[in-house]
């Protein structure tokens, strides 16, 4: 491998490595789930650390594009897991706890967040200058202003890129079903391959399955090898949930997912 370019270590990475090493050496956790340098320029990737000395490998910067909570249901079986979370990743973690895929006591949450915006849940909070902002809301509003035909052109164009590799689904912590609806063959709900209509059904239904549970971490869009604009589909649903039901997934550990509850006074206008 090429020699890594030496750079200034920043405060939050120093603290992160200290915390991780401490957790491992004290035996408080069996595994630290964090980000390390990837094998390609500009790539960070998940690392599983089991020894305190390995903590030096931990990094945290704008290249950290995975939601590491996706590994939790698998890993907590081996012992307590410390997981490095970006702000929106904690929202999926809250969801996993609510849906009983992991127990609160099985994880030590190392949350990294900018000053003044603590996540809903954490065990260690490290302030960082790294911002992982996106323009999804603005892009959603711009798209909403277009005509239905224009939006259909956009949707069709995005779906034409999809090769049905399911990287989006597998990168999503909320997609943990042991059998996904696309894998069922009796009945076969969705055909294999990249038929245009089947691909649309896959993405619409997956978005509906994530509705009220999606924490907007962006892992799906980042995972997609073809650059399909997945974030906007989920962003639309999330924006509706906020507008219609004042719901935001994963920010209140006590609040159930939006579609798992109801209010007798929910909007009824669209029903004849």
């Amino acid at each position, binding site marked *: *491998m*090429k020699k890594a370019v030496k750079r200034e270590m920043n405060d939050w990475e120093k603290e992160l490595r200290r915390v991780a090493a401490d957790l491992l050496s004290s035996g408080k956790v069996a595994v630290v789930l964090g980000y390390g340098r*990837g*094998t*390609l*320029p500009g*790539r*960070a*990737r*998940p690392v*599983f650390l089991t020894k305190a000395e390995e903590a030096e490998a931990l990094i945290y910067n704008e290249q950290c594009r*995975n939601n590491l909570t*996706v*590994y939790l249901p698998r890993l907590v079986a081996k012992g307590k897991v410390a997981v490095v979370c970006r702000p929106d990743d904690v929202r999926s973690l809250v969801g996993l706890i609510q849906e009983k895929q992991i127990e609160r006591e099985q994880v030590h949450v190392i949350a990294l967040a900018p000053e003044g915006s603590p996540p809903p849940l954490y065990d260690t909070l490290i302030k960082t200058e790294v911002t992982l902002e996106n323009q999804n809301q603005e892009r959603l509003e711009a798209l909403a202003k277009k005509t239905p035909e224009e939006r259909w052109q956009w949707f069709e164009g995005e779906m034409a*890129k999809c*090769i*049905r*590799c*399911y*990287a989006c*689904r*597998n*990168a999503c912590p909320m997609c943990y079903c042991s*059998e996904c609806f696309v*894998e069922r*063959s009796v009945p*076969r709900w969705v*055909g*294999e*391959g*990249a*038929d245009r209509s089947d691909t649309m059904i896959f993405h619409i239904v997956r978005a509906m399955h994530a509705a009220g549970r999606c924490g907007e971490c962006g*892992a799906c869009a*980042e*995972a997609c*090898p*073809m*650059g399909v604009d997945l974030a906007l589909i989920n962003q639309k649903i999330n924006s509706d949930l906020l507008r219609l039901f004042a719901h935001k997934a994963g920010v209140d550990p006590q609040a159930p997912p939006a579609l798992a509850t109801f209010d007798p006074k929910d909007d009824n206008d669209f029903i004849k």
Partner: protein
Amino acid sequence: MTESRIVLMTMKDRILPKADLPRFLDKLLEGGRVITPVDQGDFSLYRPLAKGEQVCLDYIRPACSAKEVFFPQNETLFYFLERTQKGLEHPEANERTVVFGVPACDLRGIEAQDRLFESGAFQDSYYMKRRRSALLIGLGCLEPGASCFCHYFDIDRLAGPSADLFFVPVGESFYISVHTAEGERLVGDLPVATEDHRAALEQLRARPAKFSTEKVPLDSIVRGLKERFEDPLWEAVAAKCLGCAACTFVCPTCHCFDITDETLRGVGRRVRTWDSCALPKFTLHASGHNPRMATPQRMRQRILHKFSYYEDNQGMISCTGCGRCIEVCPVNMDIREILAELAATAVE
């Protein structure tokens, strides 16, 4: 596939000034379909070129491999009537296709697929029909990309003997090596390459290539691979794998497929679609038992298939070092690391 793979020594190499490339492709379009890397924004993909459209050679290679030209992701094998079991093939028109801009790694990938689909007792007529009506024009890579490791497999980035023509960018022109009679017909009116041109090409070839990783001794890996079936390293190596199919779909050599029938109201079609050993349903038995229960077993399968079974069955390793799997993997699994690990722990 070409009628003759014997390189005729009398065929002359040619030169095409880079500025004349659009005109050259336009002329090819008159004779049929031309498939080239086409810009998609952040990457290119092999797509049919439209008249006047620009080919995109900005990227080291298209994001997906050339296999989709001969082995498409969705292919209708035939149509049928359920009640009478009557079948009907609707073969696509046999249009002459030229695939332009194929890097050496993808040429090797096509070779791997040729061995599978065209040789032996079972010949895939769908693949062969597309393949036989196609001409391949390769394109040399001046610099390897960050994920490239074709040097592991003795692939010469600047030569493509299995292609009909091979273009190498030299200065302001392409040096065109002509390998087949069909290829020669496409470039017969271009200026012949001179000694000076050949010297410039040799100078280019003499330049050392800077790959990100060093070649590993594949022989030692391949020899002992089957014995490592129960090796605990697969658990560690596949720990981060998410189990999606991205690597298999962009891979030039991966060839697994599924066949399903799709019917509606008494009529239907039988389709072949890409499948992936990385997906859970791949080895799911009707009984519910799955011999490859989790990602470690599937990663093991992937490596053994590419570096051991394919060597046994088809006489070559089915990896071309193109590096696409490394680039698309959402968690940056790196097959080079796996190979290095295997080599480092190989038992002689």
